[in-house]
């Protein structure tokens, strides 16, 4: 590189530094503070001076049944909903890709749910799943079993929370898988048509393997985002009955803002981070194995 070009290159710093600094200052640097706090006891109410306690906070969380319960709840809701999101989303994308009649009608309606505030969606769900006054109850009564207490029993509540997540985020999978389908090379499919290979084998033999890397990425994004769930739970069940539907984020929020024990809360959120990284790594390792089988 000549000196002049290098000098001209320097303008790149002007472009990237503002964004870099904002992310560093707002997203990353508070983490350093939180990391320090997680090794201390700090209470706001009643105020106690910070004191280093080593790994005590972490040990306390690791032995708390509520923590493991919230991991289990979060993982259950996430896995159920991501599974259905992927299957349904992919099928819808295939249908749209093959120009199902009335495609123009579906597009906006299909997209809309993912742009709505989860809090608003939760409010709607509360009306729709009302055990006496809601339309779902009407349908259940028609089928012979009515008045299911959707939000006050553990399993129905977890199912409702999963259904909401599926309703809201299936469009995301559809959107990305459709984009992936449109990007596939046409020649392969034409060749398969000439060889008279049926649609079923065409899908498992060509489409699915070719979209596998995209699928892995889409499911990964949904898993990561799913683990953050709080809004709908906060509005619909508040974690109840008891703490049966308390998710990790809600648990951390409750600990922090009801007990004001900040050291413990910070430790908890770092445990959360470790859980997410653990799950993420396991998933990516498993996904790599599956992908390799198709290569």
């Amino acid at each position, binding site marked *: 590189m000549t000196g002049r070009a290098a000098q001209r290159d320097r303008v790149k710093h002007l472009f990237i530094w503002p964004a870099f600094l904002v992310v560093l200052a707002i997203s990353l640097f508070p983490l*350093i*503070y939180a990391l320090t706090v997680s090794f201390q006891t700090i209470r706001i109410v009643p105020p106690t001076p910070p004191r280093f306690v080593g790994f005590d906070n972490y040990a306390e969380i690791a032995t708390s049944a509520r923590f493991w319960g919230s991991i289990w709840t979060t993982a259950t809701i996430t896995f159920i909903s991501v599974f259905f999101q992927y299957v349904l989303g992919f099928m819808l994308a295939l*249908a749209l890709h093959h120009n199902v009649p009335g495609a*123009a009608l579906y597009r906006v309606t299909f997209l809309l749910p993912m742009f709505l*505030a989860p809090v608003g969606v939760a409010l709607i769900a509360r009306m729709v799943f009302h055990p006496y006054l809601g339309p779902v109850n009407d349908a259940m009564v028609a089928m012979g079993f009515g008045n299911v207490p959707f939000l006050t029993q553990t399993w129905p509540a977890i199912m409702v929370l999963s259904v909401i997540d599926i309703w809201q985020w299936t469009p995301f999978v559809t959107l990305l898988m459709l984009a992936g389908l449109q990007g596939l090379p046409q020649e392969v499919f034409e060749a398969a048509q000439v060889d008279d290979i049926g649609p079923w084998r065409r899908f498992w033999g060509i489409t699915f393997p070719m979209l596998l890397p995209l699928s892995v990425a889409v499911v990964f994004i949904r898993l990561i985002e799913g683990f953050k769930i709080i809004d709908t739970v906060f509005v619909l069940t508040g974690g109840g009955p008891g703490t049966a539907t308390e998710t990790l984020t809600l648990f*951390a929020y409750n600990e922090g803002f009801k007990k004001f024990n900040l050291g413990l*809360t910070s430790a908890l959120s770092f445990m*959360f981070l470790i859980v997410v990284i653990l799950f993420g790594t396991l998933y990516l390792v498993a996904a790599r194995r599956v992908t390799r089988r198709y290569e």
Partner: protein
Amino acid sequence: MTENRGLRRAGLILCLFWLFVAAFPLYWVVITAFKPPLAVSGGATYLPFIDFQPTLQAFRDAFAGLRGDFWGPIVSSTLIALVATALSVFLGTMAAYALVRFTFRIRLLAGIVFAVISVGGFVLLDVYTALRVPYALAIVLVVALAVSVWLNGRRLPGPVLGNDDVTFWFVSQRIFPPIVSAFAIYLLFAEIGKAGLPLLDTFGGMVLVYTAFGLPFAVWLMRDFLSTVPLEVEEAALVDDIGRLRIFFQIVLPMATPGLIATSMIVLAFVWNEFLFALLLTTGDWQTLPILLAGQNSSRGDEWWAISVAALISIAPMVVVATVLGRMMRSGLLSGSIK
């Protein structure tokens, strides 16, 4: 071909089924907003004019402020969302442009040194000096940055990270559960507030947080959109000795308009709907709509018509966003962003 026809029919049935599933809750919230109280408490009603007489009373009540202040959260949500979206798309586009057109070489060792100095330095300052937390963090940030930038210019052993790694660094901010940084930001903002600069429950604080929150999306999406902008025009301008900044503002930005619109829409939706940060960082003056909505649940009980009006207010702008993006999806614009 009969096989194909069967599949087509299955696809159509699936689409119609999903259309019903997707649209029914929306239909429900729209009609419920027009229901009189009796049409709610007497069991589910479905058809306006047949099952019940629609009324505008819920809307009148809401906007007259009978059920708490609606206008306040609407105004703060709008202002915060628009400014934060504009800022993060602008900064994100600049960063994305740098990542598309220039090469960055960052030595892993310099990055590690940065992490060690910032964590270690902060702990030292926190334990051995009486410095307030924000000052300590600021000092550590400046020192660690200066040292690692200087180090990055030396010949260090170890792997060198490129543009893709920088992009990944931006995007990886989304992997962190937001609660991790939300609490830290809350504590930090409280400390900065004690030092004299109020950030909790202020416009500036919320915009700052949401700008950082939207940046990963903006960088990621704009990088793909900008990489499709042809290089030739820019090269011609460079030969004519037109500065990079002018090229960026007068050539690149206009050519990337569709991408800018799409990215803004997506970032806007995320900021508009964001709940957790708003829950922690606002208490009254700058409360956003999602917080108002969550409050409706406990304070309204079964006044579904009022709850529906509140939900509709937050949904309405997003219908526009989804419509615009739906159009763009048809033109295949979004297919570039998945690579």
